[in-house]
């Protein structure tokens, strides 16, 4: 009884420490976005601001074409999700039906193709995009980002398909369905949760990425590129950046909460079962 209480308090203590570690930087973003400008221009703004002031948000909405950057980011992220699912889902289905050892090697191969620095693939891609008139477009950014996001997406999808028993589509085929029908009407339907998780992962990756985005769309930038360019110009720590950061973070936090609800162990671990 006593031991149980000690154990539980130790658990809450350890979890509390981890929660603090996780939440403190997020709190800083909120703090700096809302604190009065005079209090931010210090390396260590007071942890409790003297007043809340939406000045930074006001600056962002007034002086930057915020909406156009925001829409470009959104568009790109959705196209990346689309490309990743369209290419990743069928491929993942095939991989999930391979012998274990072969599928493991294919997955590792996919990850290894990413081991080249983004800048090294980004520059030739940018010149190719220029020829195809895809520079400064969301499709151009999305194509480049998809090639990096695909391995993780495929990995998660392999897990999703693995968690579906093969006998379901097999018995459908015995009843006269074609392989393709079995895939569309059975496996794909049952893998919807996993596909949803994969969509969010691809989306998050695109929302975050700025090296490729900067190379391919230097004129019409996504939000992370905009923030980075502000910082690179030596205007780092400007209230505007923090306001951008905040606007960029809030919707995504909601997304992560949804993600963790659906990202059950059978999906993320399924590829290795």
């Amino acid at each position, binding site marked *: 009884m006593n031991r149980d209480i000690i154990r539980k308090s130790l658990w809450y203590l350890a979890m509390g420490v981890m929660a603090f570690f996780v939440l403190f930087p997020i709190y800083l973003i909120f703090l700096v976005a809302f604190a009065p400008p005079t209090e931010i221009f210090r390396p260590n703004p007071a942890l409790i601001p003297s007043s809340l002031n939406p000045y930074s948000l006001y600056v962002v909405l007034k002086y930057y074409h915020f909406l156009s950057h925001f829409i470009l980011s959104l568009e790109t992220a959705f196209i990346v999700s689309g490309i990743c699912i369209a290419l990743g889902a069928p491929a993942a289905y095939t991989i999930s039906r391979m012998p274990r050892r072969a599928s493991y090697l294919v997955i590792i191969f996919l990850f290894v193709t990413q081991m080249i620095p983004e800048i090294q693939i980004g520059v030739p891609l940018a010149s190719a995009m220029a020829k195809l008139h895809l520079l400064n477009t969301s499709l151009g950014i999305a194509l480049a980002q998809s090639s990096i996001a695909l391995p993780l997406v495929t990995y998660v999808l392999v897990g999703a398909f693995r968690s579906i028993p093969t006998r379901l589509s097999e018995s459908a085929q015995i009843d006269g369905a074609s392989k393709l029908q079995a895939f569309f009407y059975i496996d794909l339907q049952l893998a919807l949760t996993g596909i949803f998780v994969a969509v969010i992962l691809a989306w998050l990756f695109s929302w975050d990425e700025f090296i490729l985005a900067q190379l391919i769309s230097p004129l019409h930038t996504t939000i992370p590129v905009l923030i980075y360019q502000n910082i690179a110009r030596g205007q780092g720590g400007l209230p505007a950046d923090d306001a951008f950061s905040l606007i960029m973070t809030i919707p995504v*936090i909601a997304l992560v909460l949804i993600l963790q609800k659906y990202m059950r162990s059978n999906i993320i671990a399924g590829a290795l079962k």
Partner: protein
Amino acid sequence: MRIVRQLKNNLMEVVFILPLLIFIGILNIYPIIQGINLSFMLLGKYSLYNYYQLQNYTPSLYTVTVNTIAFVPFALAIEFFLALFTALLLNRSIRGRSVFRSIIMLPYGVATVVSAIAFSFIFSATNGYANEILIGIGLSHSQVNWTSGYIAFFSIAVADSWKTFPLIMLILLGGLQMIPESQYEAAAIDGASQLQQFVRITLPNLYPFIMIAMIIRAVSEFNILSLPLILVGSNVQFLGTLSFNLYETFSLGSANISAAVATVLLSIVMVFVLIYIYVSGKLGSGSR
């Protein structure tokens, strides 16, 4: 002939996987080959000039390479420790677990630029929060410059782990939840201690999950760029990693030399991958 027949039987599977392979081939593998080719080129002729040029590099290519090789396991270790620790905690059924699970996942949704800004407040050279705490509890008497020298690697590793450990935690938690309870019960009956159970049951069962999580992260760690760009920026005292220096050379406009840097990076990566496949093949064939 057998291959043709097999291909016919699995036509759908082949058609399913081809688009992905072609896409990756065009967007990833082709640029890689192009880069290797470029690194051996000088004014349209094959030459080792670019590689000789690397010797004049500051910091030297050797230093940068060693830094990269040292940084990756260091960052992975921090990430892995945080992830395993949280996964083990979250694997208990205690009230409030799902709330904590949600909180732990939050950093995964924070963009790298954003987390870098937050951590630049923590790791500022003068009076940042990290320094305030160290001086406050008396561990240090002077301001630590978190973004220069080797300490910069520590700051980068912590800031990077903060954002990425949730994903590893999820993978490990998935692995933990797949271990049958009966194994622990049997071990407990045989009188195995908690530590023994952890070493003999948890770790071996978790092994494939640890391996895939490490591969996923090592890939990004080798190429880590966005975070140091913002966190330490153009701090001349930063010692650099290969991909960071690649970016710098690139901004200076020498495509051939940066292609040479990339080729060096790629060769290092390939050595590690081959070792990895060899080791995992050996262990894998034994345990599974």
